[in-house]
């Protein structure tokens, strides 16, 4: 008998460990990218704040400029008032003299004063107008600065919100990475446990299979090979599951084999050789049988090339199960190979394509309600169980 090389549980753990490691890498990658984005946002926020400050400074300068201009206007207005007052004084002083050449002279003085006054006044008015125009332009600038500052503040707010989101995302990613690391450690521990469990030694020995009570082939064992004590490990049920899978894949029917004695390992070899009767039963398993034979190192020519494929049946049932988000293999992975009742009575449980087809065709509104609460897989499996028990 050639060695079993596969421990379903151990390989599952390796697969899960690889998956967890890949997931951790992805998370670390995301952490790195998120960190980069956070740095960019911090920089952007800094730039925006700086821009806001510059605009505010410019706006302040404009306001100061306007103040100065307004003060200058006041000064000019005061000057104009003064000029007019001076002129009036001259007019008052010189117009009292009324006769002769003095009158002409004083008239000339008054006229000159009037012309000067008008000149100055006009000059001052033009200056005031210019200053007012400047003030208007500067006010326009101030108004633009205000808009810019408002927009920058809105951008700043948005940037801060985004930064806060990315910061929370980073925290979440870091937490997830920590959890995955813990999970990877946990898997490593479990792998150690399985690797060093007595059951695993059994798997890599050349010794004859030593089944415990939970596997129905006990009846097939002769007195020599019957175990003197039951092997009890934490992995017993899953090991049985692996064996169940082997039986299912090869179409080996334990009930049919009850009569034959399990004298040597050649009987187990025959499971994988596939005699005429088994070929008919295993017509839906040829591809998987080929995979198993590689794993179990059975002779490659032991499996008949005439064994018909039944991928179509499996595909068909998986198509039926697709709306429920599951597959036949997945459903099988969620169950053991027997039902055990409180009384101790045990009944074999095996999921076939026909069973599932009947089950799915019988799904009613109650089942759909149950799917909504408990999920589709458990609902289908429970329905299948009830059908096999004859209760549905």
């Amino acid at each position, binding site marked *: 008998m050639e060695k079993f090389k596969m421990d379903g549980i151990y390989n599952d753990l390796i697969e899960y460990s690889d998956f967890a490691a890949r997931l951790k890498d992805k998370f670390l990658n995301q952490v790195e990218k998120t960190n980069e984005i956070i740095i960019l946002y911090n920089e952007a926020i800094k730039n925006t704040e700086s821009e806001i400050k510059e605009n505010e400074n410019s706006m302040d300068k404009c306001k100061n400029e306007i103040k100065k201009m307004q003060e200058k206007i006041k000064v000019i207005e005061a000057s104009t008032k003064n000029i007019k007052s001076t002129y009036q004084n001259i007019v008052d002083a010189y117009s009292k003299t009324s006769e002769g050449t003095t009158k002409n002279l004083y008239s000339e003085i008054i006229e000159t004063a009037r012309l000067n006054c008008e000149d100055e006044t006009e000059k001052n008015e033009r200056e005031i107008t210019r200053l007012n125009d400047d003030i208007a332009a500067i006010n326009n600038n101030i108004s633009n600065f205000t808009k810019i500052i408002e927009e920058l503040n809105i951008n700043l707010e948005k940037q801060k919100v985004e930064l806060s989101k990315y910061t929370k995302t980073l925290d979440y990613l870091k937490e997830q990475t920590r959890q995955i690391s813990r999970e990877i450690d946990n898997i490593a521990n479990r792998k150690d446990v399985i690797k060093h469990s007595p059951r695993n030694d059994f798997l890599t020995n050349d010794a004859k299979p030593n089944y415990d009570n939970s596997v129905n082939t006990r009846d097939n064992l002769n007195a020599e090979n019957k175990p003197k004590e039951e092997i009890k490990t*934490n992995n017993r049920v899953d090991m049985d599951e692996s064996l169940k899978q082997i039986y299912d894949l090869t179409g080996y029917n334990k009930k049919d084999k009850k009569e034959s004695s399990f004298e040597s390992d050649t009987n187990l070899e025959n499971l994988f050789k596939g005699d005429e009767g088994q070929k008919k039963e295993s017509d839906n398993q040829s591809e998987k049988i080929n995979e198993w034979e590689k794993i179990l190192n059975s002779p490659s020519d032991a499996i008949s090339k005439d064994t018909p494929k039944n991928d179509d049946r499996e595909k068909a049932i998986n198509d039926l199960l697709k709306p429920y988000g599951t597959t036949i293999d997945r459903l099988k992975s969620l169950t053991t190979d027997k039902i055990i*009742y*409180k009384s101790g009575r045990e009944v074999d449980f095996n999921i076939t394509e026909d069973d599932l087809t009947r089950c799915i065709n019988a799904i009613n509104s109650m089942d759909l309600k149950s799917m909504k*609460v408990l999920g589709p897989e*458990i609902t289908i499996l429970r329905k299948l169980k009830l059908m096999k028990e004859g209760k549905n």
Partner: protein
Amino acid sequence: MEYLKMYGLTNEDIETIKNGVSDDIYSDLTLFAPLVKKNIEFLKNFGITNYSQVIVKYPDIFLRDEGSFENVFSKFDKDDLISKCLNNVAVIKKMVEFVDKN
């Protein structure tokens, strides 16, 4: 139900479960052991330290799809739930019932 010993349950605990559930639930717990184990692992990894008590008192809550089970826990604040469960495991059952009804 021997598989439950992996999670710290004793023979007495398993007997308590057997006496506390119907034959249907009991047989479901034996048949759907792989599914139950996945859900227990989730509970354990979630941070519920007294998960073995939850298994003994409310084994039926583990008879649901993984996605559905995880969904129940996603609805509540984690730290709050862990501390409340430590005081009284009945909070888990209440939580499941609440989510199922809503």
